[in-house]
């Protein structure tokens, strides 16, 4: 189980975190006196009643993070396709946040429609943390039901899913619903400060960018006897594009998102290579183990993107920006060149993190601090749009690598390739798709 989104760690001090939390409550005018939560929840209370949809490692972590993010947060309903995953999740949460759990058996829902039952419960804050293939459908249902949402990244695995997310974005805005997303670098003080410097021109105009997610392999669940096609694919979801989007979408989206954020734009086209070179056993489904994409932004700026999941290779998770007046190693919060700068949170605050764990946890909690704060202040955040664009950036890269073709933003956005089966049934035949072959796999 991977309870955090990645191995990257923030550098924000504990004091800074507490200060910011305090500021959030002050802004909401809520310190010691909770007003009403707008707009859809139990009247007369600003209690955050969390419904968790998807109780794997990340969902469990997100529930814990939300609870730790502010007072008055309770987990009240849980949904997962598998009963055993709920049990594991619940027992893990009992060890860390037992007093904030109010999840009796009648509010633990299992099965393919569990998400509907969680949404129908008396919850006002939904955490969407299933495999991403389901996200568009879940987002749509949650917004239709008038819930605030924290959605894990990515938001979709294909063009049709992205278009659903765009509709949901508009709908949530109209309804005044808050939507936070799990691209936690946007809530990490060091990243925020660094990108701020870039936007202020600290390296001049950006002329090239690089984004990497190169690391070892992750968990895998080989098929067990008695598992149907669907059960195996759901339990081993990372290795099926309809569920994960492949690792360029599921994981590398973080780094692509940072570059889009810095560029204040998304790429207009891309060409790329990729393959399934080492991780070829059938338990690894049909996804690739490496990608390298050459993205181009509207002003002729290129981004080199590289993503790999192979054991015993050179690892690198980072983002870099080359500018007309300097260079920024974004993940190290460092600028060199005409206007050198380095984020010095610790020196300024003088209080180190209590532990490496706290340092790592910080942005994951902060994203809920910011989201809950915005709800309580009556100014709901809606982070869907930026994340959708970064998500489509990753999808277009996958399309380019899988097909060998040049893929434009419009090709990706308007793609009719729908990867998620229209209906699901535990006993349905669900063959593993063929591994993509550039030049043979069609661009659709």
């Amino acid at each position, binding site marked *: 189980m991977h309870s955090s989104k990645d191995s990257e760690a923030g550098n924000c001090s504990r004091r800074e975190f507490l200060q910011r939390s305090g500021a959030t409550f002050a802004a909401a005018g809520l310190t010691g006196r909770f007003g009403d939560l707008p707009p859809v929840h139990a009247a007369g209370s600003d209690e955050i009643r969390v419904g968790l949809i998807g109780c794997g490692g990340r969902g469990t972590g997100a529930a814990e993070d939300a609870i730790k993010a502010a007072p008055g947060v309770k987990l009240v309903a849980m949904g997962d396709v598998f009963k055993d995953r709920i049990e594991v999740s619940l027992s893990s949460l009992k060890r860390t946040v037992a007093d904030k759990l109010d999840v009796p058996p009648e509010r633990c829902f299992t099965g393919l429609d569990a998400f509907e039952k969680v949404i129908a419960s008396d919850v006002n804050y939904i955490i969407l943390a299933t495999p991403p293939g389901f996200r568009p459908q879940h987002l749509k249902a949650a917004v239709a039901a008038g819930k605030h949402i924290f959605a894990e990244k990515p938001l979709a695995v294909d063009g049709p899913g992205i278009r659903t997310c765009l509709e949901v974005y508009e709908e949530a805005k109209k309804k005044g619903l808050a939507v936070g997303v799990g691209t936690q670098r946007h809530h990490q003080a060091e990243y925020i400060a660094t990108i701020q410097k870039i936007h202020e021109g600290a390296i001049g105009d950006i002329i090239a960018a690089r984004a990497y997610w190169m690391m070892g392999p992750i968990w895998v669940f080989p098929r067990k006897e008695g598992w149907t096609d669907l059960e195996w694919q759901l339990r081993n979801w990372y290795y099926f594009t309809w569920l994960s989007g492949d690792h360029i979408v599921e994981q590398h989206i973080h780094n692509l998102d940072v570059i889009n954020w810095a560029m204040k734009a998304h790429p207009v086209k891309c060409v790329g290579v990729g393959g399934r070179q080492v991780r070829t056993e059938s338990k690894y489904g049909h996804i690739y183990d490496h990608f390298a994409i050459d993205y181009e932004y509207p002003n002729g700026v290129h981004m080199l993107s590289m993503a790999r999941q192979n054991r015993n*290779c050179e690892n690198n998770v980072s983002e870099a920006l080359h500018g*007309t007046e300097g260079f920024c190693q974004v993940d190290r919060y460092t600028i060199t060149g005409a206007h050198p700068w380095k984020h010095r949170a610790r020196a300024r605050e003088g209080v180190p993190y209590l532990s490496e764990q706290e340092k790592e946890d910080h942005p994951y909690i902060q994203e809920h601090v910011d989201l809950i704060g915005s709800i309580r202040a009556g100014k709901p955040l809606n982070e869907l749009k930026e994340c959708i664009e970064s998500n489509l950036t990753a999808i277009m890269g996958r399309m380019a690598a899988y097909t060998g073709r040049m893929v434009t933003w419009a090709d990706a956005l308007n793609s009719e390739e729908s990867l998620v089966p229209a209906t699901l049934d535990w006993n349905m035949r669900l063959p593993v798709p063929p591994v993509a072959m550039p030049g043979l796999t069609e661009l659709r």
Partner: protein
Amino acid sequence: MHRSRQAQECKASRREFIRQSATVVGATLASGVLPGAYAAGSDEIRVGLVGCGGRGTGAAVDVAAAAPGVKIVAMADAFRDRLDKSAETLKKELGDKFDVPEEQRFVGFDAYEKVLAANVNYVILATPPGFRPMHLKAAVAAGKHIFTEKPVAVDSPGVRTCLEVYEQAKAKGLGIASGTQYRHSTGHQETIQRLHDGAIGDLVFARAYFNTGLLWYRERQPGWTDMEWQMRNWYYFTWLCGDHIVEQHVHNLDVVNWAMQAHPVRCVGVGGRQVRTAPVFGHIYDHFCIDYEYANGARMMSMCRQMANCENNVSEGFAGTKGFAEIIPYRKFVITGPNAWKFDREDNKPYIQEHTTLIESLRAGRPINELKNIAESTLTAIMGRMAAYTGKLVTWEAALNSEENLMPEKLDWNAPLPVPPVAMPGQTELR
């Protein structure tokens, strides 16, 4: 047969070619006798062709067109049939300039030695690149001027040999040109000169591409030994070809090194054998993407692919602190930014020009020596291949000092020569 080094065609006008030739004639008349070891009292270029495949045959045609007083006089190939076919073509195309009687036609692994021992003063080395270091060494030892095809090696020991040969050739006053013809393209030269003059400020990011379709291949025939099949189907075996990042993409890597006036200091990369997996394709990859870093922090993104029905692109691009430059070989040379510029003439014929420049330099008594540049660009490509094959970060020192020698212990037509396993990043060792 692939006569040119790639699919792009030269576009120089005939008039331009004639002008160039005339210039050469003028230079020739003034300079008289050719320096180096050959028939005294003559400045005739007596060419020995080593490697009579498509490219070698093409190079022989090119050298004959490059200057007056050039004759093809000896030929070598591992295979009789390749030599005969080449001779037939050359006789038809070159007429009197082709003068290779039967006793000057040599076949076998040692055929190159016999060409070097013949009365030649200019050898074209155009066998599969695995043999190049050995051939370069022997040719310089024999005191010959050399036109060497690219790449000049497939592994680090080979590159080290080339660097030694470079020094020896300098000491002996021998001329060496290499088949990185972009260095002889007017469009490239004028663009790179502008980059060196600061037209786009400091170069911070470069892009080099050789994304193209499939090449020729030869199915194994009944009766062919391992060695005969690999020699005839040489592109798909790293010991002979170096893989396509070395054999082909070296062109674009060379242009970026030229512009940067440096070679990279380290690299990391990905690659694989995704589509072209049939046994006829040996064990090489079909795609690479390498992230190179130069000593000053500048980067190069390198991408090369050999796949049918994909987006093709053979080009180089540069991002500088004051603008951008884009080069599509032979066709487009553009600088944007405050010093915007465009090469608006037709490019020359660099395949011919590379010989013209070499021959002019010989006749002027100031032999050029391009071996170091091409050795460094070859090693740039080899370190990229090493990074992709192993998944590791590879430094210039690691590549330069690698003990990985790909050449079989013995060149024997009948010895078993198994196809090496396909490289697996994380498992294939960096040596």
